[in-house]
């Protein structure tokens, strides 16, 4: 009996999502032959720590070697990013303090636009790609939708970027006193008379210990009491204000640690220290990093060894990342991560050299893909695992965004012109369709592709003909954009 697709799906439903998805993930990753990079491993690393491999990225990695390239990316201050800095001058809002931002006309929309464009531009153009990947990781980890908090998010984003490769302790302490977090998780309302548990719960469930981190409902109540009086006041520089008059000064007990009576802000600081140093925090954060950088169901050996590095380095992020990305487990994980829609979108821009300056175009495309930055409402952040993004509407949106951007159907004429010019430049003077496909594929995938995929692209570009079909100006004008679109829409591109 043959297995029908429906049966197949039913069977898949019974297995774990990770197995179902990871199984045959990439058509034939092992067939990948990457002449442009030092080795397949370098391509794999680039696929994970950048938002899309450009020829210059491959060349840099080849010149330095994997380890030195990674170390360069882990120390972004060593990388010249002046072109990025110059571009960001167009988004002065990103440098405003909360007072200046609060005075902007239409401040919510304008701060949202700046935050969205800043995130997209940096991911596309910054040479400090791993820093951008980590900024996105922490933005998801401490997720806050921009809805009514754009002004506060501008500052919080700066703090996230400052500590993205620093120490988790600094991130956690900054988040606890950030008006964005205090508002979003209701701690600004938390007072001795009416304790609000929202922040306390999410602090442990999402920011530190994880849902299985061993805390109880009683701990939630005690942590909420410890943070009473942590609120927002416009009279302070940062907006954070500790109001002693609303703080619960009774003694408390958090995760077995007694907190003496008659203290003030120390209660909350003490709780943050307890949580920072808790072994469940090390494990949960390392698990999340492994899911982000390795696979949806990472080997527990790797999570354990990373947690040991985390603990030994007291929450320093760089050594943990370095350990994960140079591990044996990482090396065998190629092709197991599905690009999330935002990741896909940024990859398309990097692969095609598309410039999007019009915010409406950018926003519309990101809405179509269902992952606008700062658009996820619950506090857990956009999902990381493939299962959440495997939807028919989502897949069709990827295909259509790839096709629209590459063949220039978008109404933005300037975008169309620059993009078309780039696509021609990337394929140069290919004489045959085979050459054309190989050059475009090298640009999109950073290397050569499996034969079956190559055959499908050739059949498309040559209207069913062979790879030796000569490339004519007419063929180029008809096929080039859609060929790139197809490559970006292909399953090879969805997995990385």
């Amino acid at each position: 009996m043959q297995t029908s697709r429906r049966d197949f799906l039913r069977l898949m439903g019974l297995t774990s999502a990770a197995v179902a998805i990871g199984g045959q993930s990439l058509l034939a990753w092992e067939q990948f032959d990457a002449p442009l990079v030092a080795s397949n491993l370098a391509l794999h690393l680039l696929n994970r720590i950048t938002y899309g491999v450009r020829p210059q990225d491959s060349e840099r990695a080849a010149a330095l070697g994997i380890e030195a390239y990674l170390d360069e990316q882990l120390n972004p201050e060593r990388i010249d990013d002046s072109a990025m800095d110059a571009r960001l001058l167009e988004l002065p809002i990103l440098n405003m303090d909360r007072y200046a931002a609060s005075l902007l006309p239409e401040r919510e929309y304008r701060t949202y636009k700046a935050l969205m464009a800043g995130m997209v531009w940096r991911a596309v153009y910054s040479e400090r790609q791993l820093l951008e990947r980590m900024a996105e990781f922490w933005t998801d980890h401490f997720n806050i939708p921009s809805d009514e908090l754009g002004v506060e998010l501008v500052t919080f984003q700066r703090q996230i970027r400052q500590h993205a490769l620093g120490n988790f302790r600094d991130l956690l302490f900054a988040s606890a006193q950030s008006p964005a977090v205090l508002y979003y998780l209701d701690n600004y309302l938390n007072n001795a008379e009416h304790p609000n548990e929202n922040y306390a719960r999410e602090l442990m469930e999402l920011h530190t210990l994880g849902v299985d981190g061993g805390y109880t409902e009683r701990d939630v109540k005690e942590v909420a009491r410890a943070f009473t009086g942590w609120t927002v006041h416009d009279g302070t520089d940062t907006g954070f204000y500790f109001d002693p008059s609303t703080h619960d000064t009774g003694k408390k007990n958090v995760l077995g640690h007694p907190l003496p009576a008659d203290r003030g802000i120390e209660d909350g600081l003490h709780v943050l220290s307890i949580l920072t140093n808790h072994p469940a925090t090390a494990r949960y954060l390392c698990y999340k990093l492994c899911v982000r950088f390795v696979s949806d169901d990472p080997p527990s050996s790797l999570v354990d060894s990373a947690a040991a590095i985390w603990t030994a380095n007291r929450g320093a992020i760089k050594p943990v990342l370095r350990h994960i990305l140079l591990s044996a487990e990482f090396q065998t994980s190629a092709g197991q991560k599905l690009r999330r829609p935002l990741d896909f979108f940024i990859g398309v821009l990097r692969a095609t050299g598309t410039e999007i300056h019009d915010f409406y175009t950018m926003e519309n495309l990101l809405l179509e893909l269902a992952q606008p930055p700062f658009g996820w409402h619950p506090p857990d952040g956009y999902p990381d695992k493939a299962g959440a993004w495997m939807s028919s509407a989502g897949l069709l949106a990827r295909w259509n965004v790839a096709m629209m951007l590459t063949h220039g159907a978008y109404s933005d004429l300037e975008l169309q012109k620059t993009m078309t010019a780039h696509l021609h430049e990337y394929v140069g003077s290919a004489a045959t369709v085979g050459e054309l496909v190989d050059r475009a594929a090298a640009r999109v995938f950073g290397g050569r592709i499996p034969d079956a995929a190559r055959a499908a692209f050739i059949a498309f570009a040559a209207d069913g003909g062979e790879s030796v079909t000569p490339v004519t100006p007419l063929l180029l004008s008809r096929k080039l954009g859609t060929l790139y679109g197809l490559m970006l829409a292909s399953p090879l591109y969805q997995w990385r």
Partner: protein
Amino acid sequence: MIQTRRNFLQQMTASGAVGVSRALFPAWMPRLAFRPALQPGPGDVLVTIFLRGGIDGLSAVVPYGDGAHYYDARPTLAVPEPGAGTGATLDLDGYFGLHPSLAPLKDIYDEGGLTIVHATGSIDPSRSHFDAMQFMEYGTPGNKTTGTGWIGRHLQSAAWQNDSPFRAVGMGAMVPNSLRGGIAPLSLRSIADFHLRGRESELIRARQALAQLYTVEAPADALSAQAGLVFETVDLLQSLSAADYQPANGVTYPTDEYGFGMGLRQIAQLIKADVGLEVACLDLGGWDTHENQGTTGGYFSNLLGVLGSGLGAFYTDLDDRMGSVSVVTMSEFGRRVTENASQGTDHGHGNFMLLLGGGVKGGVYSRWPTLAPDALNDGDLPITTDYRDVLAEVVSKRLLNPALDKVFPNFQTTDLGLVLPR
């Protein structure tokens, strides 16, 4: 040999006939050719509507009969008693009434097409939207690691086969948690937009290349299976002439910013097209009214109007077909009995559910605990009817799936007599 849909598609592909152009795919073809495979389940079509954010059930289905308990707790927000002039509650049964913005539901109620359950919900005490929605959609209050939704488990445990790509549809970009489980649900934002775009002259070849690249004839993984679903869906929707859909009985759906009216209109269209739809999920969000909620004018009232007019339009549009459709609404929790200092309401507990369709018994079902301060659960409306009992009755009596132990594991269901056996 029986011509299966799969064989049919294979032949079509081999001959290059599965095209994206309307001309290559006559409108009549899929419905006739696929008909045998697109039989839905033996029971009703289920439409679930999730009111995200925690709708204020005490303003939507007003317990005016509770008198001072209600009116004292809501000095600025209470909906006036029936007969109190414009903006008054529309009486249902002498104790409960509908907010005037839900007037379209009053007609359905009077016809016997609407059952209302009050003081119901998910028994987990969480007042977090995030947790409460997840619990409710998983159908396992208190358990966050279930991983599958109650509807997903219903479809997986059902005894019948249904090979349609439209078997379970989530209206929106992402698949709702309630649909997670055994089958691959279709997510659909817009019937009219669900097609491949790009350079017109290259679309057919582009599509062939995509089908080849995703190996849709022998899907190797979940992503290529989704790709197959996309192609089938595109072809079927093409044949429905989406843009030409005319609702029956002169109905107009609301054109709200949430896409609720459009979503209901598309569900009605799919039901009438007989494409094998068994379950459709739709959201209406925006109910988290902590401030300036308004009473019979303003934000809440307008949003309630979208809900009422949307459901009214759907009911009238489907007409006789409502006899085999069950609509259920739910929300992650209700709101606090006492209004807050900002003319709004905070997160609460118990709430109401609506059941619409030809198979409901009608009336209001409630073991009403009263809103007397000492009857409340931490200041909130207690839950005296587990929402799983409401859903279980629909699953067993209307959807004809007896496997309630699979749909709601570790839960002993109680028959409340809310719907008629099919």
